Structures are given as structure tokens and as C-alpha cells.
């Protein structure tokens, strides 16, 4: 970590919605200029967390600070730009007029031209919101979030429902913003999005922060490689002959994730010299994520321990 003060500091954040624990002891911080992806399935608590940072929800316990200010305070609101989910913009104003208005709210904003070019909206500035495509509309929200030149941008599922091209165009805007030194916290359930954009990934499952690190380190924690092959043996035969390894049968292929693939390959070939269609791949973030949030925290804690032992 750097010696700078974190821009966002969340400590032991817990929130109940009735019987449901929406957030359970979440702690993390975001440094200036960092891009952090908050990854999790629907209902994992991503939006609730964002809403806490915007003071739209008050915590049951725990603390949150935005550059040492209280969330929702005037000072905090000047430092944060936001793209929320499922917002509609009044359609009777042009994109230019909307950006001009939002720009006036901030003490040190970008010029309107800068905002338009950062969000690739130059050609669309005189259009009305409801004449734009989904991807273009999302870039308008992005423009409204960045026009005040904030130190941190919160993006709540900014590319949900966009096609591949629109998503990539949006990523370009984020990359451009990142190069200006703005800290970004985005929630997403697209793994490739987190992989492509984020310096660091926080994985949220059932309100708990189950993992954080770079996408590389998260992949690493689950063991580096994924081995696939076909064989005439059954899963039970495999599991009885090789200890401590979980075999999955998917579409006729056996699937094994391993931290020490070389050793495992020897054992596999010894057990069944006739196995075929063998491939060894780098584990995808998707595999890592499935293991982290679907198998739950129990599996994770054991895998965290083994990876620690492995490192030691």
C-alpha cells in the first residue's frame, strides 16, 4: 500500500434488512487512483454497499469515510461521481444541457467539451436522451458522473444489458478515466470486466467479503491450472486412486483444478495410461469466482489455508 490516505475507508460494515444480513462485517479501503471491482452474484450485497457509500442507506454498525468525510455530506458529495442502476433521464433536455447543469454543481469541474470527449459523446451532444441507444445512454450517465472532476467514481453495474461492442466502448471510457488518476469502484457480475479493468477485485458473497486481491492472485489462490481429459474410468475410481483431489465430470470431460499440475499429471497418467484429449489451461477468473462464491466460504477458507501453506 502507498503512504497516501485511503480515499474510501470502510470498517466492519454490517447491515440487516429484516432477518437478512445484507452486509456482514465488510472492511476495505480504496487508494487514490485505484480501480477496484466489486464482484458478486445478484443479492450478494454489491448495491447495498454502494448505497452506504452514498448515504442512501445507514449502517447498523461499522464506519465509512470518504476522504475523511461522512458519506452524504456536502464535502463527500463533491468528491464522488455516481452511475446508479436503472435510472431514467428526463428526455426533454439535450445531452449538452444535462451536462452543463450537472457541471454547475461542482467547484472544480471539467469543461463540458472535456466531459463530452471523455465519454465519446461529441457527436451526440444535441440529441435527446430517449433517442440514444442503450450504450450511448450509459455513456451519458458516465458523463454526468465524471463532469464534476471527482476523485472517485462509483459505477453500479455500468454495463449490464449492453452488447459486447457497447461494453467495450464503455471500458475505453473507464480506462481513459483511470489514466487521469481517478479512483474507480465498479460493481459487476461480468468477470471479464473485472479482469480487464480492475487493479484489485473484492469478492462479495452473502454480504461477506470472501476474497480480495488482484485477479492474478485470486486465480492463484485456487491453484494455477485446470486439467481436462477424457477417460473410461468412473469418477469414483478416480477419487479412490488419487487422494485430496476433487474431480468433476462436465460434458464427458473430467475437470480438475490443481496448484501443482505437474505432480498431478504424473499421478493421472500412472492411474490411467489410456486417458485422452488432455489439456492444461490457466484457470479463468470465472472458475475462481465459481469456487469462491458458489462453493461458499468454507471451501474458500480451506483453499486460503492451503495456498498459504503452499506459499510457505
Amino acid at each position, binding site marked *: 500500500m502507498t503512504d497516501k490516505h485511503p480515499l474510501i475507508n470502510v470498517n466492519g460494515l454490517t447491515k440487516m434488512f429484516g432477518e437478512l444480513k445484507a452486509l456482514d462485517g465488510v472492511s476495505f479501503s480504496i487508494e487514490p487512483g485505484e480501480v477496484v471491482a466489486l464482484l458478486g452474484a445478484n443479492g450478494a450485497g454489491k448495491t447495498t454497499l454502494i448505497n452506504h457509500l452514498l448515504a442512501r442507506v445507514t449502517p447498523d454498525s461499522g464506519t465509512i469515510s470518504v476522504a475523511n468525510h461522512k458519506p452524504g455530506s456536502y464535502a463527500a458529495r463533491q468528491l464522488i461521481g455516481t452511475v*446508479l442502476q*436503472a435510472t431514467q433521464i428526463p428526455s*426533454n433536455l439535450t445531452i449538452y444541457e444535462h451536462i*452543463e447543469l450537472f457541471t454547475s*454543481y461542482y467547484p472544480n469541474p471539467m469543461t463540458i467539451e472535456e466531459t463530452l470527449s471523455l465519454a465519446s459523446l461529441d457527436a451526440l451532444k444535441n440529441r435527446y436522451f430517449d433517442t440514444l441507444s442503450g450504450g450511448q445512454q450509459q455513456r451519458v450517465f458516465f458523463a454526468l458522473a465524471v463532469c464534476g472532476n471527482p476523485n472517485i467514481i462509483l459505477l453500479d453495474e455500468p454495463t449490464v444489458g449492453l452488447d459486447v461492442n457497447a461494453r467495450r466502448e464503455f471500458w475505453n471510457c473507464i480506462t481513459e478515466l483511470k489514466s487521469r488518476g481517478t479512483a474507480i469502484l465498479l460493481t459487476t457480475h461480468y468477470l471479464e470486466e473485472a479482469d480487464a479493468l480492475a487493479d484489485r477485485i473484492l469478492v462479495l458473497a452473502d454480504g461477506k467479503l470472501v476474497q480480495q486481491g488482484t485477479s492474478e492472485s485470486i486465480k492463484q489462490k485456487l491453484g494455477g491450472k485446470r486439467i481436462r481429459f477424457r477417460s473410461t474410468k468412473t469418477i469414483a475410481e478416480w477419487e479412490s486412486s488419487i487422494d485430496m483431489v476433487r474431480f468433476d465430470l462436465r460434458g464427458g470431460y473430467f475437470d480438475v483444478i490443481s496448484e501443482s499440475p505437474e505432480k498431478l499429471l504424473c499421478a493421472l497418467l500412472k492411474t490411467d495410461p489410456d486417458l485422452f484429449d488432455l489439456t492444461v489451461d490457466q484457470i479463468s477468473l470465472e472458475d475462481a469466482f465459481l469456487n469462491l462464491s458458489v462453493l461458499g466460504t468454507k471451501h474458500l477458507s480451506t483453499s486460503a489455508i492451503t495456498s498459504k501453506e503452499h506459499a510457505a
Partner: protein
Amino acid sequence: MNTQINKSNYDAKAVYWLESRAELLKTFRDMGFTIPSLIFPAMFYIFFGLVFNKSAMSGQMPSYLLATYGVFGVIGPALFSFGVGVASERQQGWLTLKQCTPMPISAYFFARVVTAQVFGLIIVFSLFILGAVFGNVELTRTQWILTLLCLVIGSLPFCAMGLWLGLTLSAKAAPATVNLIYLPMAFLSGLWIPIQLFPEFMQSLAWIFPAFHLSQLTLAIQGFHLKFDLIWHLSILVLMTVVFFFLAFRAFKKMSIN
């Protein structure tokens, strides 16, 4: 980038001006709102004040109805701009997004008051011109000015009422509900037909409507009111404004904090 807040480039007045301009542009471009709300009061006044009853009340009907249709004209934009406009922007998540910015929330409400007032002014002037040109309405200069002031300031209680409705109703229910309040209230307050022509129990019923009290104050400028002490109308109107603001404030708090 610095985290210090530098206020040097920030102009609070500009926010109020741009917010108001945006609100006016947005509203005027909505032809489905602009045309009916500007035309209805004038049209009603032409039918009931200038065509059919011109010689009633010994020729004073156009003058009387100028005041009551003026009330009808200014409360419409106040109720609709706040009631329907706020409800739909609230439900679109637009109001929430704005609340996450450093925009002072007062600028948002200020802009809506300005918009309602601009619409109100256009309506009142159109009635003044119709009345003076086609209805032989002859008021002193003081009476014209007082009528205008009374109507413009008198629209504020309806802004508060509309705001409360806008913060509580769903976007879908708002237009119908606001109409259901606006039109019966207008009739039962004696804005379309002079209240003197109502049966006695309906005259008493009118006391529950803020529009009745505003119409009595406006009519008093020409001496057409029911001759109750004006302080009653004024204090009831002020009291209703305070109650509606309180209800709106409570709804606003409830909306923004969980």
C-alpha cells in the same frame, strides 16, 4: 488531484439559474403539458365568462370570473409541476441521482417554483388581456397589480401540496390523482361558478379547500368576496401551507433515508 474543496470557481447563483432554466426548457418542450395547461383556463374563461354569462351579475361576471379563473389558472401548474413532475422524476431514479451530487436540494425545488410561477404568469396575463379586451373588465391600476400579486404568491400553498403528492404518489397514479383533486376542488371552491349560487351546505363545504380561501382573497380586491373577515382566509391558507410543507418534508426524509 486534490481532495481540498476549492470554492473559488463555484457559483451558487449559477446553479439556481441553470436549474430553473433546465426546468423551464424541459416543461415547455413537453407540449402535452404546455398546451393544455396554458389553454384550458383561457378557454374556460371565454366560455363561461365572456360568451355565456357576460351580462350576468349586472355585467360584472367577466370581472368576477377573472379572479376565480385566475386562481384556477395558477394552481394547475403548481399542482402538476410538483405533483406529477416530482413523482415521475422520483420514480425514474433521477431525483436520487441528483441527490448524490452536491446540488443543493433547494435549487431543485426553487426551479420548480419558478416554472410554476412562469406558467402562472402567462395564464394570468392571458386572462387579463381577454377580460380587458372582450369582457370590458375595468379595474384600477392598484386592483390589477394586487390581483396579479395575490395569484402569484397564492400559488405557493399549491406548490407545497403538489410537492407532498409528488413525494408520496407513484408516477403512474400521480396524473389521475392530481386531476381528481384539482378539478373537483376547483368546482367546489367556486372557481367555475360563483360560490354565491351554491346551496348553503356546499358553501360551508368549500371551507376545507385551500382554493376557496385563495379565491376569496382575490375576489376581495374587487369587493366580490362573501364578506367573511379576510384574516380567516389568510390564516387558514397559511396554516394549510405549513401542514403541506411539513407532510412534504416528512415524505422527503422518509424517501432518502433507510
